[in-house]
């Protein structure tokens, strides 16, 4: 890439210099974020969640850090206080939604096929699907345990293909449907596709981002994969029961995390020993009552919207 290139003019001049009698060229100034399409849908999602007073947690980590294991452990314990459900993103299979269903958590699987991340539109369509399938049992917050442990509600991986495979041309309007099935739901957990890179840059309209890192992945990950850790509202170091078998340097990890993120609480926990789970649930309650949305990601996007009118 040409580092000396700056602005639009050089390209224009260059082209007209090469072909002086060519058709008239002009520059259309656009000045908008390329994230804008996702951002438009994320905004709709956020408005939808805000209208309903729902808090949404976007859980991200590399594959196998223990997202599903953790959710299957803590969500059943949180359900009594906060009616909740979960949406799980994986490229293929409904294995993880099935695990959560089995733990009694109303869950919907989304399959992204080739995509390595969830985006705001996939989440919007998942919300419609929750409603269509009655994932939460039309509960109004009363019958959440019976969200269909038979697996019907979690949906086969293949069944989602048609809806999630194609790219939507317009943003999905969440205002039109009644979404009765989500009535009374306070918390939505979204388990993103296992990946430390791609999910971090797609705003889903969530209230909070949770980053997981398992102790076996090494202390340097926050330095190598900065964006996810920079934007996290809560950082979970998972599989702490394995620490005795590793040369893991807690202080070094803490230092590396703080290079990227000064504020987010950090919790060591294990679904095997149970360490840190109470603390983690306490942190979720704190986020819930703190009532501030993650906006770091959007601040730089909002100003780049000069040409937003649609034709």
């Amino acid at each position, binding site marked *: 890439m040409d580092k000396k*290139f700056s602005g639009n003019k050089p390209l224009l001049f260059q082209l007209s210099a090469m072909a002086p009698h060519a058709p008239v060229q002009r520059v259309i100034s656009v000045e908008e974020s390329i994230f804008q399409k996702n951002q438009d849908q994320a905004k709709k999602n956020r408005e939808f969640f805000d209208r309903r007073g729902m808090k949404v947690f976007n859980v991200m980590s590399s594959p196998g850090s223990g997202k599903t294991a953790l959710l299957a452990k803590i969500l059943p314990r949180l359900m009594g206080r906060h009616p909740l459900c979960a949406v799980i993103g994986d490229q293929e299979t409904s294995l993880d939604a099935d695990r959560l269903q089995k733990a009694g958590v109303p869950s919907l699987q989304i399959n992204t096929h080739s995509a390595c991340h969830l985006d705001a539109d996939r989440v919007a369509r998942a919300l419609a699907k929750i409603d269509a399938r009655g994932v939460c049992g039309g509960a109004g917050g009363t019958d959440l345990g019976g969200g269909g442990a038979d697996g019907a509600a979690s949906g086969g991986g293949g069944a989602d293909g048609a809806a999630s495979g194609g790219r939507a041309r317009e943003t999905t309007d969440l205002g039109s449907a009644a979404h009765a099935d989500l009535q009374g739901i306070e918390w939505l957990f979204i388990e993103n596709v296992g990946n430390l890179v791609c999910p971090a840059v797609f705003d889903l309209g969530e209230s909070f981002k949770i980053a997981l890192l398992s102790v076996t992945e090494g202390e340097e990950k926050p330095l190598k994969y900065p964006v996810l850790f920079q934007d996290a509202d809560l950082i979970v170091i998972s599989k702490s029961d394995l620490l005795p078998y590793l040369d893991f340097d807690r202080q070094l990890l803490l230092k590396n995390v703080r290079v990227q993120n000064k504020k987010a609480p950090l919790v060591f926990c294990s679904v095997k020993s149970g360490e840190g789970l109470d603390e983690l649930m306490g942190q979720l309650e704190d986020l819930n009552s703190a009532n501030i949305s993650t906006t770091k990601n959007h601040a730089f996007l909002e100003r*780049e919207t000069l*040409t937003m009118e649609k034709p």
Partner: protein
Amino acid sequence: MHELSLALDLVERALIIAQREKVQQVRGINVLIGPDSGVDPEAFAFAFPEAAHDTLLAKTELRIQRGTGREFQFQSMVVEDV
């Protein structure tokens, strides 16, 4: 490779603008990518022709300017009118 889906979004947006402005040719598209955007410029440059394939942008030149922070911006397009 989230760059491909972002390149598809860019192409979709550029085609909407091209249609609205009734342009005949899109010579170039200028984008700005910062080092902290979470988008890899090389991967994006690689994905763009794939996303533009079989569209009005198939022969469009993608010019990537490096930013300094989190920029990931569709700055402008150089077009020829009907």
